[in-house]
């Protein structure tokens, strides 16, 4: 899902950056209100967790690899805006230090993995978990479904970005300038592998971590949603 340099046309990666700049600004403002001395280390741990979990590549034999991102888990525990910041930091470090994902495409990758994914996952989780208590099975199920759905929606939006390229950027001879496969191939390919395998990996990571933390750190698990509920009631 890490789109490399040379894969998206300037129009596409430019638009993605144009969308990301205000999102980063808003995320910064939201965190300015909610971050405390206690939660700054959690934000740092979130960014580091996202980075390290993405190194666990899971193979589809002879075809492809994929991995969990941690974005759904961070969104559930620290809120979706914190996930935007944490995952953006992880993606930037991957691109700058390890050539994993491009620099021109960093905005696009952030849009997919640091915005669309955590917000989708957060919505799904809140819907299923409601205000159940920390150890409720609803939270674990909600986390699993949130991980699965969030990763797959992001896979589809990545597929759309890739598949649009041959439509909007062609050389004079009609050959594609950047990504070569159209929507009819890119979207099913991206969606297929994530629906079939990688979504379950993200689901297992999200639900497993949540189940563990619900037992050992219930305050962390209900913290984010309680704060949101309080805000709604106020």
């Amino acid at each position, binding site marked *: 899902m*890490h*789109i*490399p*340099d*040379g*894969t998206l*046309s300037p129009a596409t990666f430019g638009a993605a950056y144009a969308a990301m700049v205000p999102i980063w600004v808003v995320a910064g403002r939201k*965190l*300015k209100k909610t*971050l*405390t*001395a*206690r*939660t*700054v*280390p*959690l*934000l*740092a*741990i979130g*960014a*580091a*967790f996202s*980075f*390290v979990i993405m*190194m*666990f*590549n899971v*193979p589809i034999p*002879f*075809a*492809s*690899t994929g991995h969990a991102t941690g974005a759904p888990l961070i969104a559930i525990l620290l809120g979706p805006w914190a996930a935007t*910041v*944490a995952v953006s*930091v*992880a993606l*930037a*470090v*991957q691109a*700058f*230090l*390890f*050539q*994993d994902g*491009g*620099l*021109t495409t960093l905005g696009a990758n952030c849009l997919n993995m640091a915005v669309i994914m955590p917000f989708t996952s957060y919505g799904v989780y809140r819907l299923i978990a409601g205000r159940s208590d920390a150890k409720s099975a609803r939270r674990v199920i909600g986390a699993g479904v949130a991980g699965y759905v969030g990763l797959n929606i992001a896979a589809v939006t*990545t*597929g759309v970005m*890739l598949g649009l390229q041959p439509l909007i950027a062609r050389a004079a001879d009609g*050959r*594609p300038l*950047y*990504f*070569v496969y159209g929507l009819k191939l890119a979207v099913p*390919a*991206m969606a297929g*592998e994530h629906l079939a395998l990688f979504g379950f990996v993200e689901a297992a990571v999200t639900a497993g971590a949540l189940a563990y933390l619900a037992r*050992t750190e219930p305050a962390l698990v209900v913290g984010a949603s309680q704060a949101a509920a309080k805000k709604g009631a106020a």
Partner: protein
Amino acid sequence: MRAHRLTHRLWIALGLLALLTPLGLWLPQRLKAGDAWGEWGPEQVSRQVGFVPEGMSRSSDRWHAPMPDYAPKGWEKRSLFRLSVAYIGSALIGVAACAALAWALGRWLSRKEKARAA
């Protein structure tokens, strides 16, 4: 106090994860998984469709990261053992870089908040 203990435990968990990362290197190699779908360089695209798209050949190598593919430059053909060591090193460097960057961002954002509240 409690919060302190929690973050302490989470850091240890991150360290353990970093030590386990070579799994994410071995399994795909064992099963000949290749690259993630769509994350192809010019050579792979050329192998698939017989040409390198013009825009791609112009812009795919704009940035040269210090440790491409989570290993020092030029290590592509090293043994799996060495690559695994490099992978763990990359994990630790990445964890430290991400944590430092997010920490600095968080400190900056939360400090502003306090200054305004005071």
